[in-house]
């Protein structure tokens, strides 16, 4: 059973294009992310990195192209050729996790409730089981002592670690990280990156939009560089950081080094 599924990529993006009010922000993006891979997406602000990520779980609706999550097309029902209903879309989104720059923890729920919420109300998991999973995940992200705390009492780094646990609770095929450390003060960045590093060594599939060069270099299997809505470089980190093909990336690395 499991043999053939190994060949199906966790995410495959083909010919993805997207405009906002006539301004093209993504053009002909092609990207395949295999199971267990970590892909870092780099590029300057406005290059389309976040839009690309948000298209993967259809928070943004692409104009053209296709995206498959573990072999299943998102956004369009392949049988009817129509736009997915909100229910179909939800079913597929439940198989992806997302971690936001601004955390977006639900403020009315305690830390453990934030983690239990989606398993209970999306997956219809029994509460006891959801709680057991949440306890385990909060332990994993180093917040075993914060179960009953409310999000407003946490530091940014703690909030982001809860958000990661919340995403993991759905056992997603892929976790999308949208600049997860950009809103953190420098002292807190490390604790979040460490958690992400641990996830990668546990075999989670991750797509990480980031400005953290060191993370991209040390953890990714592939580094992707976006410039004006196009992928202009796609390489393993060793090649990307030491011997990039394009002048644009060379300049980017010089400035950010």
């Amino acid at each position, binding site marked *: 059973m499991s043999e053939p599924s190994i060949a199906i990529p966790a995410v495959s993006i083909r010919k993805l294009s997207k405009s906002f009010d006539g301004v093209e922000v993504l053009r002909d993006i092609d990207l395949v992310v295999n199971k267990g891979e970590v892909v870092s997406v780099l590029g300057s602000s406005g290059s389309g990195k976040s839009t690309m990520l948000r298209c993967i779980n259809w928070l943004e609706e692409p104009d053209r192209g296709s995206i498959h999550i573990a072999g299943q097309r998102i956004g369009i029902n392949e049988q009817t050729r129509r736009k997915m209903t909100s229910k179909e879309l*939800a079913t*597929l*989104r*439940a198989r992806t996790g997302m971690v936001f720059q601004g955390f*977006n923890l639900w403020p009315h729920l305690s830390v453990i409730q934030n983690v239990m919420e989606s398993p209970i109300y999306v997956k219809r998991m029994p509460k006891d089981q959801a709680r057991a999973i949440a306890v385990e995940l909060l332990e994993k992200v180093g917040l075993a002592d914060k179960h009953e705390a409310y999000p407003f009492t946490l530091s940014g780094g703690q909030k982001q670690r809860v*958000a990661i646990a919340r*995403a993991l609770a*759905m056992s997603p095929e892929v976790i999308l990280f949208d600049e997860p450390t950009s809103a953190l003060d420098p002292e807190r960045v490390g604790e979040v990156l460490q958690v992400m590093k641990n996830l990668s060594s546990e075999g989670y599939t991750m797509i990480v939009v980031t400005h953290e060069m060191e993370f991209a270099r040390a953890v990714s299997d592939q580094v992707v560089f976006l410039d004006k809505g196009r992928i202009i470089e796609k390489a393993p980190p060793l090649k990307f950081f030491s011997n990039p093909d394009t002048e644009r990336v060379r300049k980017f690395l010089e400035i950010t080094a």
Partner: protein
Amino acid sequence: MTEWTILWEARALFLDGLLATLGLFALSIICAFVLGCAWVFLLEERNRLSIVVRGWINLMRTLPFLILAYLLYYGLPELGLRMSAWTAGLLALVIYHAAYFAEILRGSRLVLPEGYIEAAKAHGFTPLRLYLRITLPQLLIKTRPLLGNQLIIALKDTAFLTIITVQELTAAANSVQSTYFIPTQAFVVVIVMYWLISICLELALKRAGRFGARRGFDHV
């Protein structure tokens, strides 16, 4: 016999009126609240139905409550729909205050950070679950003082229904004052009763505010 003894003798009448008012109020605000929450959910989708809902809410907000009550009780029978005064009054309270509840929640929805909604979508919430579990609880916490105010307005609007012959608290006072001609005392009694109910509402809502305060919400 002094005026106050007359009122004491008529206590059964006041008590019946009070119970009718409380029953009418409780039932109407529960239904209005649920309906108001439903309106806001329908507004989320931004389709043709949501335009109709928006129009309906605005229509209710521009209509004097008494006219709505008149329409339902005296107008609808012309269309062959006859209701008791009590049913017509209840219906008027429900649809009128549902519109106000909806408007209060909608205002808060407009300024709710989209990130919470996106996080829920990204985790696979369907629209109704998202609304009930993520959006609505936050709206209720944030609008608690306004909702409390609306409850008091709804309580006072029950008094209008005396005009379409609903036998509630104001009707009781009116009947006593016109029988014995003691308007001041009779109305003072019911004013105190409305006031006491309002105070209880205020206290209950103040307690509810702790729920939001514990979660770090401001101005609740």
